[in-house]
Structures are given as C-alpha cells and as structure tokens.
C-alpha cells in the first residue's frame, strides 16, 4: 500500500497534465461561446467528483452507523472534506462561466441550487464535526449525513417546481455534444477522480494516524498517572 501511493500520485499528475493539454489545445473551440467554454472541462468533472464523494460519505456514514467501524468514519470525514473542496470549485467556476455566456453570475436554476444546498449541508456537517465536544461526534455526524441525504430529493422537487412556475433562466440550448469534446471531458473526469481519490486517500490515512496518536497519548497519560515518578 505504501509503495502504491507515490506511483498513483505520479499517474494522477500525468493524467491531470494530459487532461489540461487536451482541454486547452486539442479540444475544438465551441462555436458560439468560444474559448470560455473550455472551463467546462473543469466545471463538470469537479461536479461529478463532488457528487461521487458526497455519495461515498453517505455510504461510509451508514456503514459506520451499522458497524461502528472507526475507519468508516475516517473515510466519511475525508470524503466530506474533499467533496466540499470540489463542490466549491464547481460553485466558483460556474459563475465565471455563466457571466460571459448567460450574462448573469447566478440564477436559481435547478442544478445550481441543488449544488449550493448540498454544499451548505456538507459545510454544516464539517462545522458539526469541528464544534462537537461529544465523545461520539462520529455518530452525530453520521446521523446528519443520513438526514442530509433524505433532504436531497425534497430539495430537488421543491426547486424543480419553484423553477417551472417562474420564468425560465437563460440557458444556452442543450443539443448534443461533439464526440471530441466528450472525449476530453471524460479524460478530465478520470483525472479529477484520480486526484480526488489521491487526496482522500492521504486525508484518510492522516485521520487514522492522528487517531492512533491520540489513543496512544491518552493511554500513556493514563499509565503515567498510575505509576509514581
């Protein structure tokens, strides 16, 4: 495992640079939007990665509630943290792209709003973990993750209806995507997923280690208190 990490890191770096090259040079320029459309190769893969990580957080949280496995909790924490970072990237690149193309920074569109609400829920999840003084923070966090997941379909339907009765936002027509663009998108998606997995891996490892250190320290202080110096 320890040897696999640097190899994986190098592979991810290579894939990311290949993805960057493909997105900036190889991919065809979009007809109406021009070069600004290239942000698409970062915006969309980040979104997919963030959603995957939030899903991973849910699975790990449920796993923790069933099995009380401390590693599942460390994984949930790592997935939530990295997911929030990717979600932030989505929410920042979105307006940068929207401004020149739609003429507005933000609109209460279904996907935008859903992403924002997810971001808010997961930030509150991280806040809870940070502020909790309970010895059972993982349980509370896992419960919050489950409630957050229950909330997602309700948010979806509410925004969907909210938007259908108000004027539709100005969105560049859908239509099909150029196969070359799809190719670049998929490469970038693979690169971002690898990058997310890499960061999650090291964050997870760090969390497990820091817990071990904490346990050892607690044990040492217990033993130290027992024996007279």
């Amino acid at each position, binding site marked *: 495992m320890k040897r696999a990490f640097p190899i994986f890191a190098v592979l991810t770096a290579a894939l990311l640079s290949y993805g960057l090259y493909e997105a900036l040079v190889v991919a065809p320029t979009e007809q109406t939007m021009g070069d600004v459309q290239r942000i698409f190769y970062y915006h969309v893969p980040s979104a997919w990665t963030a959603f995957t990580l939030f899903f991973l957080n849910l699975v790990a949280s449920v796993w923790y509630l069933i099995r009380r496995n401390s590693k599942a909790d460390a994984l949930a924490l790592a997935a939530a943290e990295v997911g929030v970072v990717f979600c932030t990237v989505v929410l920042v690149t979105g307006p940068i792209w929207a401004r020149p193309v739609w003429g507005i920074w933000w609109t209460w569109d279904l996907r935008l709003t859903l992403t924002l609400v997810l971001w*808010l829920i997961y930030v*509150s999840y991280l806040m809870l973990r940070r502020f909790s*003084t*309970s010895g059972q923070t993982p*349980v*509370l966090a896992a419960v*919050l993750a489950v409630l957050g997941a229950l909330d997602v379909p309700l*948010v979806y339907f509410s925004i969907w209806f909210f938007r259908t009765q108000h004027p539709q936002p100005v969105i560049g027509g859908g239509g099909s995507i150029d196969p070359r663009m799809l190719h670049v998108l998929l490469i970038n998606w693979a690169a971002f997923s690898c990058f997310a997995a890499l960061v999650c891996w090291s964050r997870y490892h760090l969390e497990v280690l820091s817990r071990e250190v904490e346990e050892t320290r607690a044990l040492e202080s217990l033993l130290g208190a027992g024996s007279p110096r």
Partner: protein
Amino acid sequence: MSTGITRATLAKDLRLEWRSKDAINSMLFFALLVVVIFSFSFDPTAEESRRIAGGLVWVAFLFAAVVALNQTWARELRNQVLDAYRVSPAPPNSLFLAKALGNFIFVTVLEALMTPLFIVFYNLRALGPAYQLLIVSVLGTWALVVNGTFFAAMSLHTRSREIMLPLLLFPITIPALLAMVEATGAILTGEFSARFWIVLLAAYDVVFTMASLFLFELVLQAE
C-alpha cells in the same frame, strides 16, 4: 413508543413553561422585533406586501422558533435530568415526540399571536383560499419543530451550542422553508395553486418525522 411517557413529559414541559413563560416571552418579543424591523426596512405597498409576506412571516417565525428550540434540551442539562433520561428505560423516541409536540404548541401560540400583527402592519388580505393557510401553518410549523428539536439535541454537545442549532437547521430546512413561503405567497396573491407545496410539505413532514423518531436514540445516547 409509549404514549404515557410522551404525555407525562409534555405535561411537565407545558407546566414549566406556564410557570416561567421563558420560551414564549423571548420568542414573542423577538418575533415582534423582526416584524417591526422588516416593516420599516421594506415599507411595502399592499400589492407588494402580498407577494413578499410569505417570506417575511416564515423567516420571522423561523428565527423566533430557534430561540425556543435552543431552550428545549438545555433546560434538561440542569440537575443532570438528561442523564436520568438516558439511564431510564423510557423509549427515547417518545421523549423526542413529547419535546417536539411541546415546541409545536409554543410556536403555534406564537403564530396565533403574531399573525394579527402581520395583518395590521402589512395590510394583508388573502385573495386565494384562506383555509389553506391553516394547513400550511400546521404542516410548516411541524416541519420546523421536528427538525429543530432533533438538531437542538444534536447541538447540545457542541461548543457555542446556541449558534450551532441554526447552522444545522437552516440548510436542511431549505426545501420546507421554500414550500411554506411559496404556498403562503400563492394563497395570499391567489395567482396560482398552493397544492404542490402543501403536498411537498406533507412529504417533508412524514420523511423527517420518521427519520427523527428512528434516529433519535443515537443522538440521545451520544454524550
């Protein structure tokens, strides 16, 4: 679930509140302040106010409810009452139900007292079916208190717990809040039907009531 324990706890909370009137007084004054501040910071005409009243009313109630919700469990920390609950064989979800019902009653009383004020300050008159406002307020209030009671218990074991409750409650209640605001707006303006929002609120209530009753034991046992 045990209705006896729910009834006993609810009766105890109501008696406590009746004698001290802490929650209701602080909520009322807070909501009054919000109404007054909103009223002169927007200064709307009757037509405009019909459109924005849904948002103003529910935001005021949400903020005021947080004041009461924060006291729900904090009250039990004195004299280690919460520890007594933990070791008692009483089912945790009946305790939760009692607390949620108690908060529901407090917030409903608040709404009953504040609604006339809103009508006076904003010159409100419903152009749609007014009876639906009653349904919306019952479902909406339950949505607020069921989540609020749950998250208040969750934030009990955090630093600066008074701040933590809204941080947990607001993101999750976004769909419910949107539904309440839109339904109220729809009924007041009479421009479109509020049926979808009422159904959504009911679905929200069912989902989160079940989830809270099911998961509350975990939260109560977490010290």
